[in-house]
């Protein structure tokens, strides 16, 4: 065996391993620092709970989400007494989208697709729930933090 050659190969291997681990940690830390996934999860959970409560009130109502959601797209739908809210940003792959599912009362429906709306409103009209951008009137008097 050529020991000098083996030593060089070993050195290259060490270098590759160190660079690989460093890159991995940098990417992981960068991804972690952005926390985009955390924001999307929190928004999806908030919307799920707000829609659950909205489905439980008697009569019609509109409630506004108290955060600026212009960076996000919200898709809401329902099928067979199951509501689903999906939160994502432009360019997100399927795996990066955050979906939250929850039970809806019997014949209730949920619908809506909102893209880059500063203010998001959740509305109940009879047994229909909607996710939509707030109208100018609904935005009045409510300051975003």
């Amino acid at each position, binding site marked *: *065996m050529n*020991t*000098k050659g*083996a*030593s060089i190969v*070993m050195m290259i*291997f*060490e270098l590759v*391993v160190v660079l690989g*681990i460093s890159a*991995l*940690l940098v990417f*992981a830390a960068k991804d*972690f620092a952005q*926390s985009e*996934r*955390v924001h999307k*999860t*929190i928004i999806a*959970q908030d919307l*799920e*709970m707000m829609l*659950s*409560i909205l*489905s*439980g*009130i*008697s*009569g019609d109502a509109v409630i506004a989400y108290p955060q600026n959601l212009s960076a996000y797209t919200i898709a809401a739908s329902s099928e067979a*007494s*199951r509501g689903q809210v999906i939160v994502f940003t432009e360019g997100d792959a399927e795996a990066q989208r955050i979906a939250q599912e*929850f*039970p809806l*009362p*019997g014949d*209730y429906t949920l619908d809506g697709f909102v893209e880059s709306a500063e203010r998001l409103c959740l509305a109940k009209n009879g*047994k229909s729930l909607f996710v939509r951008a707030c109208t100018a009137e609904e935005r009045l008097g409510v300051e975003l933090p």
Partner: protein
Amino acid sequence: MNKKGESAFDVARKSIYWMIAGVVITMIALAVGGIMAGYLNSLTSVPPKLQAEALAYRFLHSADCLAYQDAETGRVYSNVIDANKFTGEQFSSCYTTESRKEINFGLTLKNAAKTIVTNNYFKTDRFNVTRTVLVWDGTQFTKDTLEMGVQEKI
């Protein structure tokens, strides 16, 4: 030792070193991944009681669930249970889960000694939520205690 011998020893030593280092690095990477995942979960976790309250809100406030609605005026009385609606069938139309991994409820009216449960409820409550309610039996209101057993992810 001659130079050739030293170099062979060096290669062998490094091979052993990297074998051990490989195991240690893998363990560290797994630990870091686990810590990050745990931290992310802690950032996004919702207190189970809050989630259960949000889901259970409909039970006592919606006429499509258990709340009493005056047939003449159409007014819905929050925290008043219509005894005729306190059935498994009505409860299923109000709240149905797909699996036992979701939140399931078992509702008991203490004085009336009636219990209704959701479709994946197996009496393994994580906690209970108690409410004082009125029950409308068609002729009069009676005071009762509603105990909601909350079962989570089993």
